């Protein structure tokens, strides 16, 4: 828990700055092709990157905060949750398995590809569907 506390405070300070600066608009444009930014909505990109690097706890924390402030709603939250469900903490997890002798690239690339494809396919479902399944 201490580790989470130490990571989450600076993360939120950076997040705050990045949101105020409007970096997310720029980042959303840059990553548009890869992360399907149109479906993810720009405010969910930073939580997504945090989740990819640090873990689902931090990412979920940022999404919790975003949903608390009502900036992002059902569909982007669900899509980000699916993406990160399949593919998160990619560096630490992969290194753990490489440490006991698995092949790193074979673990990393299929996960990234699978997550992108699943989210891409789910993105075709209409927003009303997401309003329904929102718990």
């Amino acid at each position, binding site marked *: *828990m201490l580790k*989470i*506390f130490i990571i*989450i*405070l600076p*993360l*939120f*300070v*950076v*997040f*705050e*700055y990045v*949101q*105020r*600066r*409007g970096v997310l*608009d720029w980042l959303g444009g840059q990553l548009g092709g890869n992360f399907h930014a149109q479906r993810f909505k720009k*405010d969910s990109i930073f939580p997504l990157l945090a989740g990819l690097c640090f873990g*689902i*706890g931090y990412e*979920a*924390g*940022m*999404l*919790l*905060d975003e*949903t*608390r*402030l009502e*900036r992002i709603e059902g569909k982007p*939250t*669900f899509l980000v*949750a*699916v993406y990160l*469900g*399949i*593919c998160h903490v990619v560096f630490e*997890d*992969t290194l*753990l*398995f490489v*440490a*006991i*002798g*698995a*092949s790193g690239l*074979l*673990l990393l690339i*299929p*996960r990234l590809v*699978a*997550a992108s494809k*699943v989210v891409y396919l789910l993105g075709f479902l209409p927003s009303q569907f997401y309003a329904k*399944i*929102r*718990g």
Partner: protein
Amino acid sequence: MNVSYKTTGPTSFCLTEFVPAGFRRGLITFGMLSKIMVPVFVVVYLLKQTPFFDQIASFFRPYMGILGRPGDVALAMVVGSLVNLYSAIAVLAPLELSWQLTVASIFLGVFHSHLMEGAIMYKMKTRFLTIALLRLAVGFLLTWGMKLSLL
């Protein structure tokens, strides 16, 4: 510039403005997270003292052959998918697998720590069961594909 920020008034880039604001959001979020994570930590710790995980593993052991893995991996998969990857690796490390290790770990990489992550997802108000099923399906697909390509 897009000023979509709507909680603390006008947008400011001053250090004394955004640092405390970010800290406050971080603290609120940390509070929300600890309300979920601490109880789950306690439950997982208590379950580890009982033979609960061994029993689930012995149920799944005969089916491991379908995915091209020896039966011993069952315990690692059950512990990994419920508790976390560290405990799964503690089980996997002494087994001396070769290519099967990569196959087992791609499944674990996609499908793991569901007690903790399910609780977090529940708090996020997304359907954690839907996501868990999706992850299971993707995990099996990847495992199956990797088994075919590595064999």
